[in-house]
């Protein structure tokens, strides 16, 4: 009994939902009430997962709270996280209370924190990549083997062709870069795309059939 509730019903639900979506796409004409109902189903996804955000918040607070109370490693930094959560949550809840439709992101103060403070950290961390891409190229683009050399030369030609200066040095560089992008790159890309499509479809089929159910728990 318990296995039925724990495993088989969820599997059956997954299967049913998958089949409904496939049937809707192929057999239900647009604009019919049945099709509209399935569109609502996709909209419901956002609602169904919504509480997970609360879970994340609680788990984070619990993790750092426990760390502080135990004076664990780096507990002082844990207080920063907790203060950040509490302050931003207050801003957000104030926004919810004052914003006409009880939304959080749309409230002015919440958006201000995001655009004026949060965005700086976001963009800076992203820009670390300018350094990492340079050091990774330095350390990994070596003439080790034929494969590595192809990687190196195509990469170097792209670098030359994509930089404005490349075209000034020799007008052929941008053309070669465009050709590399349009021809060999497109070939590899196409194979990867097709491979992923087949792999993903069969993964989904395995999953809908309950064959691959790594995520659905107990084997016992």
């Amino acid at each position, binding site marked *: 009994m318990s296995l039925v509730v724990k495993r088989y019903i969820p599997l059956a639900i997954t299967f049913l939902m998958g089949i409904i979506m496939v049937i809707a796409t192929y057999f239900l004409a647009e604009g019919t009430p049945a099709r509209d109902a399935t569109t609502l189903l996709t909209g419901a996804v956002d609602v169904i997962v919504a509480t997970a955000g609360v879970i994340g918040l609680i788990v984070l607070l619990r993790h750092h709270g426990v760390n502080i109370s135990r004076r664990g490693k780096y507990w002082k930094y844990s207080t920063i996280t907790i203060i950040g959560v509490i302050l931003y949550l207050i801003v957000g809840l104030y926004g919810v209370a004052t914003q006409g439709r009880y939304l959080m992101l749309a409230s002015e103060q919440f958006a201000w924190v995001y655009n004026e403070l949060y965005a700086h950290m*976001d963009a800076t961390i992203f820009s670390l990549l300018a350094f990492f891409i340079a050091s990774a190229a330095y350390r990994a683009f070596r003439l080790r083997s034929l494969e590595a050399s192809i990687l190196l030369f195509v990469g170097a030609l792209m670098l030359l062709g*994509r*930089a404005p200066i490349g075209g000034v040095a020799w007008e052929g560089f941008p053309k070669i870069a465009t050709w590399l992008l349009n021809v060999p790159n497109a070939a590899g890309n196409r194979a990867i795309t097709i491979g992923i499509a087949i792999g993903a479809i069969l993964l989904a089929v395995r999953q809908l059939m309950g064959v691959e159910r790594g995520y659905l728990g107990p084997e016992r």
Partner: protein
Amino acid sequence: MSISEKIARIDRRYLYILVFIVVTIPLLNPLKLPLPIGEHATRVYDKTEALAAGSIVIESIDFGPSTRPENYPQMKAHLFHAKERGLKVVALAFWPSGAPIGEQALREVYDSDFPDIPEYGTSVVYLGYVPGAEVGMQTFADNTATAKGTDHYGTSLTSLPLMQECRSAADFDLWAEWASGTPGEQQVIQFVQGRHGGPSAVPIVVGATAVSVPGMMNFYISGQIYGILNGLAGAGEYEYLLNVKYGYPYAQGPSLDAQSLGHVLILLFIILGNVGYLLTRSKGGKS
């Protein structure tokens, strides 16, 4: 440690300092290097230029602050172009973080009082954030009114004349996608173009971060994407084209100089690394 080993294993921090210096110099002191104009950007320009005045352009702002340096100048230049050409613009964002950015661009291009301008509602509308990601796109293409009932400022769509003209994908003359991830150009192709008559019915031009451009080439070759602005260089090329005809400021000059030097520096790194590698290897072979 021998010299060749040292060359092969330079501490990464020195590389970082070099990157920092080399990118900074041209920003402080522009070098004014010339810029070649590529086919990808020209096609975006020509497509927009060829549209009849009064055609409806969807400007889909699907990026956040993190890729703003690349996407923003592209989008702004294209908005300017659309305005100059007398096209009707429906701007919207499928990314929540795109909504404030879109508003800022519209203010800079149209007027700082946007949306309190006479043409608002007739030749330009800003819908703001449209929720639902790819589902939202699909709904918007099926019926613009059901995706979102009001514009960014709470005005009902029924009271905006432009939205009466722009009811579904059949009315779109061009979809300009400012993309940096998911949802992005792939979702537009799948859920808007794919379901509404293909590339001839809904042509798509994309302004993308340079990282995602190689992945789009397939769609470009197959015609599903008509033209691409490739990263900052694409923005620069577009600004340059607009500069020639409309006198739009070519602001990306210093940045593109910095790009050039950065690329050359990384090439030097690669060469240096390989010199060190080959030297150590040949030594290893002897002993």
